[in-house]
């Protein structure tokens, strides 16, 4: 029981983190039609900058400063890069963001080296939040959850209650009409791109010390975030939220479990006399490929994703 509960909490924490990344990616995609390959790079930059800023000013200022810096960088990237590339079509845009992700990785290695940096959870947040029997839930995970939930609420209010949010929602479907009504849609694009980058960076700030901060972290996170967006339905915030939680919880359970698909089938009372090799792998071994299996399944059975409006 306590295993279930703690694992669920861990899964939800990870899922919310995935949403912090995928929300920006899906908004950018649906407004501008750009699949931003460099999105996870902003996540990585958030972690590194928090490490750097945190070393001087401490964790709390870094929590604010790193996302703001990366957000400004994201806005500049949109203004000076993506917008220029856009004139040459979608392929140019894709190549641009693809190139940018490599550039960021190289730069990070140049500045901080190839090994992981020592970005740690601040002492004030170290330790256990509570202990259920023999399993404890770290205080820092609780903090990650609180930050994610605050961000979720903030995003929700910004989109549903503000005028900019209304303009954003209208631009999801008919940007040219929104602009013809007198709204500076290009500026809104920059704002969304910058905010998406800032959210990704915030995810990096709070996850970089819980997991590891190393040059490969963007390349590791990028594909999963893509999967989340596709499974949720390209362009759907609600879908991205569902898919984030689904994949977060599922993957955490798989990693934490110690039995195989065959065991699972036996427990459910199904006899599996000669199981294929794949089924004899433990769920833990399958965990890393689960998101991709899920994506393939979704693309086959429900191509528009869980909540997407259009075919992917």
């Amino acid at each position: 029981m306590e295993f279930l509960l703690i694992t669920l909490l861990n899964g939800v924490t990870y899922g919310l983190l995935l949403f912090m990344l995928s929300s920006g990616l899906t908004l950018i995609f649906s407004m501008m039609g750009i699949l931003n390959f460099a999105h996870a790079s902003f996540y990585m930059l958030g972690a590194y900058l928090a490490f750097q800023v945190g070393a001087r000013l401490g964790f709390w200022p870094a929590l604010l400063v790193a996302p703001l810096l990366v957000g400004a960088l994201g806005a500049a990237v949109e203004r000076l890069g993506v917008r220029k590339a856009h004139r040459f079509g979608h392929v140019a845009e894709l190549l641009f963001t693809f190139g940018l992700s490599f550039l960021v990785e190289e730069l990070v290695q140049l500045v901080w080296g190839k090994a992981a940096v020592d970005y740690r959870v601040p002492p004030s947040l170290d330790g256990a939040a509570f202990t259920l029997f023999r399993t404890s839930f770290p205080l820092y995970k609780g903090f990650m959850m609180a930050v994610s939930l605050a961000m979720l609420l903030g995003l929700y209010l910004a989109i549903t209650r503000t005028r900019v949010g209304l303009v954003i929602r209208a631009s999801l479907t008919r940007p040219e009409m929104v602009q013809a009504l007198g709204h500076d849609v290009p500026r809104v694009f920059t704002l969304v791109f910058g905010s998406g980058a800032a959210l990704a960076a915030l995810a990096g700030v709070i996850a970089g010390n819980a997991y590891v901060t190393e040059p490969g972290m963007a390349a590791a996170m990028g594909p999963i975030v893509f999967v989340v967006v596709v499974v949720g339905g390209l362009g759907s915030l609600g879908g991205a939220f569902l898919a984030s939680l689904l994949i977060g919880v599922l993957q955490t359970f798989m990693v934490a479990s110690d039995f195989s698909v065959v065991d699972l089938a036996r427990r459910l009372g199904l006899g599996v006399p000669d199981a294929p090799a794949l089924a004899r792998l433990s769920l833990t071994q399958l965990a890393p490929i689960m998101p991709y299996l899920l994506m393939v399944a979704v693309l086959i059975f429900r191509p528009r994703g869980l909540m997407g409006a259009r075919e992917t």
Partner: protein
Amino acid sequence: MLEVNDLHAFYGKSHVLHGVHLSVGAGEIVALLGRNGVGRSTTVKAVMGQVTATGSVRFQGREILGLKAHQIARRGLGWVPEDRAIFQDLTVRQNLELGLKGKRESARWGMKDVFALFPQLEQRADTPAGVLSGGEQQMLTLCRTLMGDPQLVMIDEPTEGLAPKIVEQVGAFLGEIARRGVAVLLVEQKLDIALDISRRLYVMGHGRIVFQGTPQELRGNDAVRKEWLEV
């Protein structure tokens, strides 16, 4: 108020407008007629900064060709596209709010005026605009543009696909808009409504203006009607 001179427009390499000239005065209703595909929509889209164009478009004495669509809108030009471009998932009220350019409503057209003229829109203020009937959507898209307090609205085929009774209602509404001092450039295919409400008319053919005159002049000109309008 609006003067278009030697307007050429392009979709990629295809050259669609070949030197269009037209003008609309303050408070006037002017019709732009022609068969499908002659370039009427392209003309208003070029004025609105939605397609690449060369030539000259002056609005209230200033050149606007080359400005971005939102800058043109902020100068006081309104555009109601032929597909109406309703924000389907947003409510009727939110659609109208998006017509506002700032936070404040103008004195000429506010939410109150819209609801007074079209009580159906008030009853459905909080339902998604996608569920409205075609006629209601047409009224909504017109009102949405008026919320931004334009000096001139360009309305692209507002009566397409509407029942005759609703067409009449649209005609009356356009008259009301002009009475409040807003000039109207009406793109139409149907002659009747255009002859009824406009002060002057232009007829387009193959990306050029082929006739301009008053409703009486067009009524009297069988040749132009036969060659450029009747199907």
